[in-house]
């Protein structure tokens, strides 16, 4: 299905990103101005320049957590998705309930459970392996990622036309051969846009790790705030800066996902 907006895509993208950046910049400048108004302290820009390296390191840590969670979640989610598609009813039921359970659970609750209930270290063959909070957070984010990847896989397999199954069966392929040689290769393209969308959501949610004490960007923002005398007017610019970082990372990913979606649709 071709949309009229596709024809205007290049112009559309430029104007939208301009608009978005304009609004973001306005928010940023506006709140900074308010903060700076009538104050004898350092200006917001000075403060941000001073602390930017630290905050950006924190941001990179968020990205690390997001990449690891997505990797683990995908590795676990694909077998779970295959379980949902199994012709053996007990296996598919189990896969279904596990998927639904972890999809329906709020991510913050899962995070809390992982951080609070998992042990702080492992003892394996006499060796003590520490299990730091941020790794527990990765586990916490991998669980909903896994469930969503499972659903994405299931959706992709179901979207392959029945004719493919029929002709494969008529040529004598058994179920396993059909799945791995014919159906799954066709699914990869279909899975990419929702998968990237999921990655974006996971990245956004990594900031909730601050609530359970992981030292990522938001925690550091609070520390910076305290270091600057806890002036309340600094909060808006500081949070705007955090939002700006995520925006700059997520926006291109979102646009590329849209491009992939369109590309796939037109071909069909």
């Amino acid at each position, binding site marked *: 299905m071709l949309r009229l907006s596709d024809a205007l895509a290049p112009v559309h993208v430029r104007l939208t990103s301009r608009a978005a950046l304009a*609004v973001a910049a306005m928010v940023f400048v506006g709140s900074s101005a308010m903060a700076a108004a009538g104050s004898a302290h350092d200006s917001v820009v000075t403060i941000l320049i001073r602390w930017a390296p630290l905050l950006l390191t924190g941001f990179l840590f968020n990205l690390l957590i997001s990449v690891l969670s997505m990797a683990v979640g995908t590795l676990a989610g694909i077998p779970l998705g295959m379980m949902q598609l199994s012709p053996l009813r007990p296996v598919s039921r189990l896969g279904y309930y596990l998927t639904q359970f972890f999809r329906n659970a709020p991510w913050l609750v899962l995070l809390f459970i992982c951080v609070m209930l998992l042990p702080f270290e492992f003892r394996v063959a006499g060796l003590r392996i520490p299990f730091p909070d941020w790794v527990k957070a990765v586990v916490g984010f991998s669980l909903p990622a896994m469930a969503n990847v499972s659903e994405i896989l299931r959706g992709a397999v*179901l979207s392959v036309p029945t004719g493919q199954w029929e002709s494969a069966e008529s040529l004598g392929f058994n179920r396993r051969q059909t799945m791995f040689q014919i159906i799954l290769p066709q699914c990869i393209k279909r899975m990419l846009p929702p998968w990237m969308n999921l990655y*974006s959501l996971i990245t956004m949610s*990594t900031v909730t790790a601050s609530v359970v004490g992981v030292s990522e960007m*938001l925690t550091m923002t609070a520390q910076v705030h305290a270091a600057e005398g806890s002036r309340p007017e600094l909060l808006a610019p500081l949070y705007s800066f955090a939002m700006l970082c995520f925006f700059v990372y*997520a926006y291109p990913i979102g646009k590329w996902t849209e491009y992939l979606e369109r590309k796939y649709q037109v071909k069909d």
Partner: protein
Amino acid sequence: MQVIYDWFLAFYERTGINLSFIYDNFDRTRIIKGFWLTIELSMITIALSVIVGVVGAWLKGARSGWVRHSVDGFISIFRNTPPLVQIYFFYFGLGFMLPRVMDPISGTMAPMVTNFQWAVLSLSLFAGAFNIEIFRSGMEAVPRAMVEAADSLGYTRSQIYWHVVLPLAFRNCLPALGNNLVNLVKTTNLAYAIAVPEMMYAAKQIWSDSSNVREMMIFLLFAYVFLVAILVYGLNWLERALRIPGYGQMGGR
């Protein structure tokens, strides 16, 4: 009812599994209040986010390029920034800028907008941004041929919109809209971070007092999954009730 409560107290003494939110009056009240607040928060944000979605989708069809691109900018910002930071920005960042008013009940100076209200505002805008996209694509997925057919039958523009486009667009959107609303209910959980006494906050208070972290966490998990499952079930029912035979997706195996 007291019999049940006593049983659970005995259960605790027997097994060490402390479900104080059942047998203890105070804890039970706290968790029930939290539960209802979660529901209240969810329902208000769902309603407001749908309104934001409808208004935004309508604005996106505006003639003025500025209006259209502003809406796009709004959507872009709320989709590409973390909802938790959005909540913090509203509550901490903007909240302090508003004047304090005299609270008639307690007689003290209280913020003009409560944390609950900030949470509602922030979450409604967040979910609303996604809804605008969903409503827009639902409308665009209605084949042009239908609009042309209605036009040739003599329908006016607003009649076409109301009788042909909207019913089909609504059915188109339902899966995505339902998904978004489910996500919204899960996201209301974040209000915990600004001390809105929803279910998780209540649970935290209970485990701080009674040291039953493990039990509370597991209960919380199942309580939320249960709530969301009800919503999912309701949405599936709605989708089935509205289904038009032969229209929409047909699955493979």
